[in-house]
């Protein structure tokens, strides 16, 4: 029994170590004074200062955030509509085909998605003259296309789990279909829509492959900049950037956990 516990405990430690030691090492090295990754010469914040002054990285980060925000919002909108159609329209013509095509981007290799979208944009440019150049717009469109499928899956799961009689009751009480969707359905799937939005935001933020295919010369997203910098050798300011990102994500997770705990407490104590 005791042996078993020791074994399980060491497995746990090893697993966590495997996950987090690389990240922690990277954060530690971001405070190294030296340019070299192999020698520790002392504690310094100079790479954070260098990061702050690196316009290329700052611009790329802002561009990534902008694209992520826009594409997550549109993906949530379209994905929710698709989920509503899938779970509330009954058995319409072509439902099976639609359902399969909605899930396809989830399993499609990113290289294929990226390549096909690139070809689409190129031929559209030839035919219609739009998009005039590839850049933030085309990246956003590409991200909407594949993130929409993730949102649809998340929202559809919530819609399927939802008690249909809630909507029927609202309709029975005099609600028109549109009103019922606004009064009952949307508030109840809002948490799923929020998770879908966050998922789409994250997917867009760290996508490298698809963005590389459909971006233009003047629009490099943050992952693209990091990747190209690392190709020229590990730069300490990239370490600093990673540390900043990890702290932001960590804080976000902590805040979300705290919020959830607070709501759960409120539900159990019954206070308004």
């Amino acid at each position, binding site marked *: 029994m005791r042996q078993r516990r020791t074994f399980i405990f060491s497995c746990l430690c090893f697993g966590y170590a495997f996950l987090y030691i690389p990240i922690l090492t990277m954060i530690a090295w971001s405070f190294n004074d030296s340019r070299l990754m192999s020698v520790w010469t002392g504690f310094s914040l100079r790479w954070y200062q260098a990061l702050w002054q690196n316009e290329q990285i700052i611009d790329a980060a802002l561009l990534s955030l902008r694209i992520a925000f826009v594409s997550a919002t549109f993906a949530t909108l379209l994905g929710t509509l698709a989920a509503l159609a899938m779970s509330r329209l009954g058995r319409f013509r072509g439902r099976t085909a639609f359902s399969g095509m909605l899930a396809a981007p989830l399993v499609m290799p990113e290289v294929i998605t990226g390549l096909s979208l690139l070809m689409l944009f190129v031929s559209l440019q030839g035919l219609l003259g739009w998009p005039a150049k590839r850049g933030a717009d085309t990246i956003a469109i590409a991200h909407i296309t594949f993130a929409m499928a993730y949102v649809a899956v998340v929202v559809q799961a919530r819609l399927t789990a939802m*008690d249909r*009689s*809630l909507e*029927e*009751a*609202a*309709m*029975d*009480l*005099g*609600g*028109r279909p549109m*009103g019922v969707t606004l*009064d*009952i359905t949307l*508030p*109840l799937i809002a948490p799923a829509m929020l998770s879908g939005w966050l998922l789409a935001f994250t997917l867009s933020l760290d996508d490298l492959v698809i963005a590389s295919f459909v971006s233009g010369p003047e629009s490099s997203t943050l992952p693209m900049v990091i990747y190209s910098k690392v190709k020229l050798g590990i730069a300490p300011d990239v370490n600093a950037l990673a540390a900043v990102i990890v702290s932001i994500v960590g804080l976000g997770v902590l805040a979300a956990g705290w919020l959830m705990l607070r709501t759960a407490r409120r*539900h159990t104590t*019954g206070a*308004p």
Partner: protein
Amino acid sequence: MQESDNNQFRNPWEDPAAAPFIRIDGLRKEFDGFPAVDGVSLNIYKGELFAILGGSGCGKSTLLRMLAGFEAPTAGQVFIDGVEMTHLPPFARPTNMMFQSYAVFPHYSVADNVAYGLKKEGVGKGEVRARVQEMLELVQLQEFAKRKPRQLSGGQQQRVALARALVKRPKVLLLDEPLAALDKSLRERTQFELMNIQDQLGITFILVTHDQEEAMTLATRIAVMDAGRFVQVGTPTEIYEYPNSRFVADFIGTINLFRCHQRGNDGTAVVACEETGVPIQADLPEAELPDAFDVAVRPEKIRLSRQTPEGEGLTILHGMVEDLAYYGNHSLYRVRTDQGKLVQVSSQNAHRSAELALEWDEQVYLSWPKDCSVVLTQ
């Protein structure tokens, strides 16, 4: 009070001149070619508490959902108060429904739940508040008006659902298994509350249930449903005392069935029965009887005695107590007759003394008068 011309009828359904409040005419619903409701016609009168009773999958819920407007009938018509409703959407019907799952909106407070229907109707703010208050008082939830549904018990949520359905003053209230999710004592209390509320408001109730006890206690009339059709429609007494088929007899309460043959042409009141060895006394229907049919007897109609019973028109069997169960207010006996047929008998324990109490393996006579024998041909 003014005397009407047709006051010789105590109940509207006995009066052929009475206009039905709800008229269901040849209603049919198919799912993928399979009929869930298979041509049902029915008149329901104003102020009735009508129960549709049947096992799961008999089509009773589909029928209710067609009345509410959630399912479009394949064929047939529905009229409520003289207006055709067959193809109207739920929000355009003067019906409200109480769902089995209660379907209380989780993100609204109790008061907002009840107010929803009135707001959709465009009722003014002040009136909404007054009517919601009135309804919450009716279901005794005034103190809970600001609570969210998750802070309420199942019984309280059900009362919210009831108040929400009644606040719009529907012409018909539809109830889908209203008491199924409540525990026994709460169920009994709610039964009486429902009957009181129905009495107070005079709204016509149609309820769907699989629980025969619930139907018997609540309803003015019951329709027993099987495989998409009504097997029998009648008052609880009619259904219980005069079932028209083996299905109804079996579904409502327990009953003893004896397989019988008519003895020659002379027997008008006596039928032969191999299962009992002795003929059974019964009032035979006027219509021609088939070669084989059943005679049904309710367990509480049979008397047990140690001495040979005497009387006109009694069917008398002899057997041995094989099993007995004491329930306090009554006891259940299973008696094996000399011919090997197992008969269920229930008897009231009206007296406290145990001198009459029968024991296991005791020899007894069973007897019942002929008007308690029900002849079932289908």
